[in-house]
């Protein structure tokens, strides 16, 4: 099911005045895709999710599910399944009963499934009761998330990762048109996070359900999402497949938010068509740009140390070398004192205090103007 957000806006009245949580968000989520809503705390991603779910009303704009305007529709009528950061499992029910809950206790959902069952029973020889049908659905959902051995246990007896899977099963058992996840991995420890993350991707691909995933962890979204929606202060910063947003950020915020270690940002200046970095002239800039102050963004992985034989390269001094796992990071200092990070070439390692020359890969240098917008990338 395709989800289209048109000028979606949400304003809250607070003690300090009106807060714009989401500002005219325009995004189209294609059917069957796993989309990540990404951004720092307070950027509006969770509010957006809640608006798609129908928990928050819209101050302005529209939401369309397959071209049907659902803006004013109550949550239970939207066919939404939701998974929460804290799992929100009913502690007094067993895992099996938790998953079955929507099918048993929701009038609307029950009606839908009863109808399905009637149609099934018409052509079947042996009639299935509703309870049996529910059990079948529960089993199916539990198998999908691989939690079948725990159906009789209570949620408190399960680990965080297992509880999260139960939550996903409960959201999926009612066959929703869209699956929403609100920071589902934040409460898990590091190892479990990686595991469950891949599970979510697997489940999404198996079911083909349109999924929206809210997170503040850029690594999560970069690895599993088909597309990411990057937000800041309620406004859309960029939207697209993770790799292209990563490689071609549209502004300084996006460039800085994605990537670990964060992108190197160096103060610079364009003077007469030349780029000056940290006070020192570096290279000629294509195009006809005005003289202005800029910030140059270059990712660590796109910088390499020039070999002795090579001619050019931006001069710098290596001031620190640190090893983490398999990667060695070099901290280099430029002429005016700016520090940047890059990776060590293990075949010809350098030492601390060595004078080095830096070369940048093609298409990897981004220039950002004062307000953060990108002027050039080459």
């Amino acid at each position, binding site marked *: 099911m395709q989800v289209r957000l048109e000028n979606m806006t949400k304003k809250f009245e607070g003690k300090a005045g009106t807060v714009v*949580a989401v500002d005219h968000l325009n995004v189209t989520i294609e059917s069957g895709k796993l989309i990540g809503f990404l951004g720092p705390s307070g950027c509006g991603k*969770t*509010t957006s999710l*809640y608006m798609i779910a*129908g*928990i928050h009303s819209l101050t302005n704009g529209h939401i369309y599910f397959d071209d049907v305007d659902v803006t004013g529709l109550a949550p239970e009528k939207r066919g939404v399944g939701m998974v929460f950061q804290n799992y929100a499992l009913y502690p007094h029910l067993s895992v099996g009963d938790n998953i079955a809950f929507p099918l048993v206790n929701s009038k609307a959902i029950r009606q839908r499934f009863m109808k399905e069952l009637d149609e099934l029973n018409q052509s079947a020889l042996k009639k299935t009761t509703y309870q049996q049908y529910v059990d079948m659905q529960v089993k199916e959902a539990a198998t999908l998330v691989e939690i079948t051995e725990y159906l009789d246990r209570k949620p408190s007896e399960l680990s965080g990762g297992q509880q999260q899977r139960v939550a996903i099963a409960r959201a999926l058992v009612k066959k929703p048109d869209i699956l929403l996840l609100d920071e589902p991995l934040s409460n898990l420890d590091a190892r479990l996070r990686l595991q469950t993350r891949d599970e979510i991707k697997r489940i999404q691909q198996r079911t083909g359900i349109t999924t929206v995933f809210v997170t503040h962890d850029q690594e999560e979204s970069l690895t599993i999402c088909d597309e990411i929606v990057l937000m800041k202060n309620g406004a859309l910063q960029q939207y697209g497949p993770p790799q292209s947003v990563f490689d071609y950020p549209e502004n300084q915020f996006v460039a800085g938010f994605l990537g670990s270690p964060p992108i190197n940002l160096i103060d610079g200046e364009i003077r007469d068509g030349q780029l000056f970095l940290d006070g020192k002239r570096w290279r000629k800039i294509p195009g006809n740009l005005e003289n202005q102050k800029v910030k140059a963004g270059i990712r660590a992985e796109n910088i390499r140390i020039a070999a002795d034989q090579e001619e050019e390269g931006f001069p710098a001094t290596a001031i620190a070398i640190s090893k983490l796992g398999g990667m060695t990071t070099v901290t280099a200092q430029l002429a005016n004192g700016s520090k940047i990070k890059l990776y060590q070439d293990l075949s010809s390692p350098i030492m601390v205090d060595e004078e080095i020359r830096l070369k940048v890969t093609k298409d990897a240098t981004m220039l950002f103007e004062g307000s953060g917008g990108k002027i050039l990338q080459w």
Partner: protein
Amino acid sequence: MVTKQNKKDNLSYTKTAYIYLIPAFTLLAIFVLYPIINTIITSFKLDYKFLTGAFTEFNIRYYHEMLKDPVFRRACVNTSFIAFVCVPASMISALVVALALNSIKRFKQLLITLYYLPQVTNVIAAGFVFLLIFNKNFGLLNTVLGWFGIEPVAWISGSGIAGSAELYNQSYRRCLFVLFVYSMWQGLSLKVILFLAGLQNINPQYYQVAQLDGTSKLNVFRKITWPLLSPTTIYIYVTSSITAFKAYSMVVAMFSEKFGPPGDNSKMMITMVGYILEQLGDYLKPGAVSRASVAAVVLMLIVMILTALQLGITKRGVHYK
């Protein structure tokens, strides 16, 4: 920035909320709010006739009269006795018992259950039993005193008090003693449980640090236990005092609706609530209900002051960690 309220603004159901609250507030309006206002107003109505609701004028005369009424004064004295003598006494005893209880492990549950029994005992039944225990001839207490060679005491007796002030005072003192013992017996039970809970709420790490520092037991109590117990102590004191001001059933059980030992016509042991209900008993007499209302208003003011005091002290002078 998604605050609790904001999280579900599309899901707020004002109509449902009001429907859910209607039963509670209907009952509240009829049996609580209306009575409060009505009682205050009635206290000013002179010669109020219950059947017709007619009265002569609004005046604070009944307030003046009541303050001069010796029976009302007696009621205040007795009620104050319960609130300011019996309550602190039972609090201190309860604290001692709770401290002892906190230091043992075995039989704790059994002891707690037994200590709490007076709280679930019918006040009238308990009153009867105490009456019997303090009986001059068949009472348990006099029997025990007899073992020590003490003559039987007429604990609850009004013989000869009409003529002699000395005998009256003696009878009064003895009745107060009986009341005191009953108060202690009843009051200990709840307070022990509450103190125990308060003690158990104190983080044991404080005691461990004190132990490492070699602090004496007395100092542990003074510097750690007592200050950390203060919110509980204040709560117990205020609620017990409020309950003390409402004392009625126990007095009726032991001293009958005449509020005094047999032979007494002065309502020796009357309490404030007793005064209210006694006035109310004559409800057909003009002005009776008004007088009862006056006493009720005075009682309410005292209780409100006490409660406000608790809130005030709890917010400021409490020794937290």
